[in-house]
């Protein structure tokens, strides 16, 4: 996994990254490169700086500062020497590279009639390393299955950034596509047709339309496609039973999800929000919960042991709550699910 990233880096940074302590290398989550400023890396939820020989420092003093030349090379390599082919990505502010890793960009924006047309003079990079954690959804999965209708529950997964949402829904898609042998109640649960709308190429990490992550045998991926349109296209053409999408939130996304739920297709999507209540505060999400497009909400929280989840029913969440206490579904305990973070080198 690291090799996919390191081949993008200029030689000096590559060497630095290879010399990191094994623990950091293993759990690397982010590499933050800022022109002429200290190199920062993040692993296991903590942030450190690194010096030229790969030693970790807690403060920025003495840390390695990538030069402008290196940043230029990095930009060239991660855009595959073709900035012009990345206009859409630049407008959004990040680039997804082979392996599903996402590189966020910061710099001076180019405006066109008040609309951001792209970024130039890019001076900051945030390389977020995507990890495929097979089995990440194992604990959550039984709660997503709707046995009566022989399909999955429409579920909204909310969490702040960096909590493993994408990793989770990738594994959900994979599990649903493979089917579950010996589910909690002892019965087999056959695989479903899964459609993934992968706007940022993060879920399936497609290279030329073919997923590089294992997303299951019955999964179709609409790569680099706007979510709303992608969902409609999949609905029309691929007849999915489950739709998976990442980071919804815009009005047209909601429209497409509503359309899908009318068609009887389960939708599993993620959204940025601090927690379930916060999600209810966002009008688009709230409306979706109200009209039953999502029947449950999963909240993720990262702790030292791993990623915990908590499940709420949509209806109970929407009851006007007066106090701080969130009403809970009877069947749901506290943060009971424990997703082991077991990275697999891909």
């Amino acid at each position: 996994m690291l090799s996919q990233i390191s081949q993008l880096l200029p030689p000096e940074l590559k060497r630095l990254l290879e010399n990191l302590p094994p623990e950091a290398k293993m759990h690397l989550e982010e590499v933050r490169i800022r022109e002429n400023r200290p190199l920062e890396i993040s692993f296991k939820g903590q942030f450190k700086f690194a010096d030229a020989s790969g030693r970790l420092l807690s403060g920025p003093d003495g840390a390695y500062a990538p030069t402008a030349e290196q940043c230029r090379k990095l930009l060239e390599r991660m855009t595959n020497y073709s900035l012009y082919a990345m206009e859409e990505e630049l407008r959004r502010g990040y680039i997804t590279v082979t392996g599903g890793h996402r590189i966020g960009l910061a710099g001076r924006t180019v405006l066109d009639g008040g609309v951001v047309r792209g970024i130039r003079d890019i001076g900051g990079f945030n390389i977020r390393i995507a990890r495929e954690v097979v089995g990440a959804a194992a604990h959550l999965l039984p709660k997503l299955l709707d046995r009566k209708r022989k399909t999955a529950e429409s579920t909204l997964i909310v969490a702040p950034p960096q909590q493993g949402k994408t990793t989770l829904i990738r594994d959900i898609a994979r599990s649903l596509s493979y089917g579950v042998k010996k589910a909690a109640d002892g019965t087999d649960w056959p695989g479903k047709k899964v459609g993934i709308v992968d706007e940022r190429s993060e879920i399936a990490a497609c290279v030329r339309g073919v997923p590089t992550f294992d997303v299951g045998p019955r999964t179709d991926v609409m790569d680099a496609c706007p979510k709303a349109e992608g969902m409609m296209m999949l609905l029309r053409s691929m007849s999915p039973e489950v739709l998976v999408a990442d980071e919804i939130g815009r009005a047209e996304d909601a429209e497409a999800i509503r359309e899908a739920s009318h068609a009887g297709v389960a939708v599993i999507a993620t959204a940025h929000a601090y927690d379930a209540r916060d999600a209810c505060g966002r009008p688009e999400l709230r409306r979706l919960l109200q009209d039953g497009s999502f029947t449950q909400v999963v909240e993720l929280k990262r702790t030292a042991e791993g990623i915990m989840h908590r499940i709420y029913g949509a209806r109970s969440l929407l009851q006007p709550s007066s106090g701080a206490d969130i009403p809970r579904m009877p069947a749901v305990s506290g943060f009971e699910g424990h997703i082991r973070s077991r990275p697999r080198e891909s």
Partner: protein
Amino acid sequence: MIKLLGAALILFAGTMIGFQQAARIAERPRQLRALSHALSRLETEIGYGHTPLPEALTRTADTAEEPIRGMLRGAAAGLWNADGLSFRESWDEAVRKHWSATAMKKNEQAIVLRLGSTLGISDKDDQKKHLKLALLQLQAEEDAAREEQSRYEKMWKSLGVLIAVLIVILMV
């Protein structure tokens, strides 16, 4: 006898040098035209196909003829080797390496090298602009080269023979 042989040899060599120079001069507009074609193809790949540069280069190389093909191939190949070259470095290296095999001159090389420092690092419109500019400059060079060809091709052919004869006469 030896004298005669030497004279014949000098004569032959001179004639050949003259013909080669003439061929070089005739080759130059042709190669310039080929280079223009390759660049406009590259422009299409970049402007309409949004093809990533390494792939656009290889595709363009496939349709081009030698020596331009080798140059474009070299530039594309340099990109993904382990040295972490930037595009400009890779392009410079490939151009300089393959330039001696072409009949083109320093002027064109400067145009092509300048293009190398802009390719791939800006948005589509900018890329197209740079390519257009390079094409325009190459077009001007080509016109000049054509005129030169009509003038100098014959000259070199006769000059080669004449100089050879002169040397022979002086040495007898």
